[in-house]
């Protein structure tokens, strides 16, 4: 009985468990991110922040769970959302109004799929394949159907026949990635799904039939699509360096040290691309200083003004989950993913991602997660420190600065790879090549600031329009 159960569990592929664990961890984290945001805000503004709600539910015998420094707040907020009226004002487009939060949360949840949390786990298991001839290698296509069925789903690397006492039994070694979906176009997948979130925003804004929502939706759309272009280009510089769209491979190739001391993370080779990426993910998440879409002073709540109850909560969750995904991508592209010197085991230069210890895989996930949380902390720090831009400044930054700059950095990276990438570009961008890329980044930045000095000064924004006929404007007043 136990054996049957064990076999049956073995047959559920690893990705199933990973998907469940990652999904619920992400949702739990997102709930606590909202608490963290409030805590960071209160820290920045020198006040205490939420510190009342614990897990005592008002019951006297649970006195020891009272307070907890506000840790019960997310649970209380979630319950309150559920118990609120799901209200839909008159005049809305009923179908689209209902669909919008769903689209938003759906795209954000599936975008987490391609994040490589913990490298590749390798396991070995003795399996009776029913093949009697154990003297020679057995090609996979010659295995009997029964033997095929006994192999675990996924990539089987090799099988070694066990000693003679168990004929037909192989020690089969197989590998699976510690991520939800090991897609070879992971980068493209994440960019595509994240850009679909625009539909949630624009549909929600339009369907509400509210002027604030409509303007907020328009602004958010313009903002998100504008910053998608430099975002894609900044990601392209990293794709260009490694020649792959697989996030797992990109992380794997950063998992080593230059001269044994500096981690070979892309933050050190492509700092300019990293800065552009960071700015773009702030804009994509519609967060301060780019949160023109929900500028409270002008637009009340932006595109979700008319939403209440759980539908509003879905928008809210999607915003924070999107932040989590983009931060995770940032960590994978620029901060070496799960790699941390001395902690993540396996320094085998040819195959740094493969580990056979479950503990190391879990430590890698923790390292990745902590790095992601640090990026999210930067998000919050920025939000509570910087004032909001004007809309023309927002669009100007994307179209007049970031897009040409990212095109030039892409071009510079291509030239560097063309001239210096012959020996080690594919496997590793390190040593001399890393220094040259760093120099290319710095030169690009200097050239750009130089070029902006040469450009003709733009006409002053916020022009004063003097009333014709007044003492400031000699023009005669317009006759009505």
């Amino acid at each position, binding site marked *: 009985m136990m054996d049957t159960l064990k076999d049956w569990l073995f047959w559920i592929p690893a990705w199933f468990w990973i998907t469940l664990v990652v999904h619920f961890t992400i949702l739990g984290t997102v709930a606590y991110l909202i608490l963290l945001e409030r805590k960071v805000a209160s820290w920045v503004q020198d006040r205490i922040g939420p510190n009342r709600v614990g897990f005592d539910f008002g019951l006297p015998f649970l006195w020891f769970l009272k307070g907890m420094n506000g840790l019960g707040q997310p649970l209380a907020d979630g319950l309150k959302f559920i118990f609120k*009226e*799901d209200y839909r004002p008159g005049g809305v487009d009923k179908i689209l109004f209902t669909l919008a939060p769903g689209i938003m949360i759906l795209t954000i949840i599936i975008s987490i799929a391609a994040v490589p949390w913990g490298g590749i786990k390798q396991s070995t298991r003795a399996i009776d394949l029913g093949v009697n001839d154990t003297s020679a*290698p057995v090609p996979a296509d010659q295995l009997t159907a029964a033997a095929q069925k006994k192999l675990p789903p996924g990539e089987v*690397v090799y099988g070694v026949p066990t000693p003679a006492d168990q004929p037909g039994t192989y020690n089969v070694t197989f590998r699976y990635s510690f991520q939800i979906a090991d897609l070879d176009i992971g980068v493209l997948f994440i960019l595509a799904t994240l850009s679909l979130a625009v539909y949630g925003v624009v549909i929600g804004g339009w369907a509400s039939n509210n002027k604030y929502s409509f303007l907020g939706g*328009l602004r958010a759309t313009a903002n998100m*699509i*504008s910053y998608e272009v430099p975002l894609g280009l900044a990601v392209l510089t990293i*794709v260009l360096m490694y020649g792959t769209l697989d996030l797992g491979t990109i992380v794997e190739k950063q998992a080593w040290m230059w001269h044994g001391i500096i981690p070979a993370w892309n933050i050190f080779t492509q700092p300019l691309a990293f800065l552009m990426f960071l700015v773009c993910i702030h804009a994509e998440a519609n967060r301060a200083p780019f949160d023109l879409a929900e500028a409270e002073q002008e637009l009340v709540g932006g595109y979700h003004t008319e939403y209440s109850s759980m539908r509003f909560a879905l928008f809210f969750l999607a915003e924070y989950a999107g932040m989590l995904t983009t931060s995770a991508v940032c960590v994978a592209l620029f901060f070496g993913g799960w790699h941390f010197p001395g902690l993540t085991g396996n320094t085998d230069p040819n195959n740094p991602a493969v580990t056979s210890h479950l503990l190391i895989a879990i430590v890698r996930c923790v390292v990745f997660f902590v790095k992601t949380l640090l990026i999210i902390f930067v998000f919050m720090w920025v939000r509570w420190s910087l004032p909001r831009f004007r809309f023309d400044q927002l669009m100007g930054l994307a179209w007049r600065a970031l897009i040409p700059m990212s*095109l030039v950095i892409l071009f510079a990276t291509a030239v560097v790879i063309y001239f210096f990438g012959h020996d080690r570009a594919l496997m590793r961008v390190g040593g001399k090549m890393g220094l040259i890329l760093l120099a290319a980044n710095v030169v690009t930045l200097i050239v750009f600031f130089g070029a902006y000095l040469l450009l003709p000064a*733009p006409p002053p924004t916020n022009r004063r329009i003097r009333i014709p006929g007044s003492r400031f404007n000699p023009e005669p007043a317009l006759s009505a």
Partner: protein
Amino acid sequence: MTSSLLAVQLADPRLAWAPVVLLIIIAVGFAVTNVAVSILIGPKRSGKVKETTYESGMVPIGDTRRRFNVRFYIVAMIFLVIDVDIIFFYPWATIFAPYVQKMPDKSGALLIEMIVFVGLLLLAYVYAWGKGVFRWD
């Protein structure tokens, strides 16, 4: 140790998308359940004033769905043009580094193709700049 190996059996590449399907199901379930529960549990009270669109407490003036600033159209159009161009960069970026390493004599042509492409893109970009597409003030 006898190293009689089973051949490498690669997973079906289509199988890699199975978790995405699972996630879609989970996400749809999550959204539908949450909204359904709040509809079932939450109170339902309505009224003429509550039905109106929120406009800072005023009686709403006119309809929302009317003409809006043409700049939003222009930025959407220029986004389409440039973003489609960037999609064309992806296959190029994926093969460039392997080409430089394995076939250096052919990679020069790849670089020149990209320079021409970026040049055309920049030409369109400068034209759009000159036409005032990027001016929002």
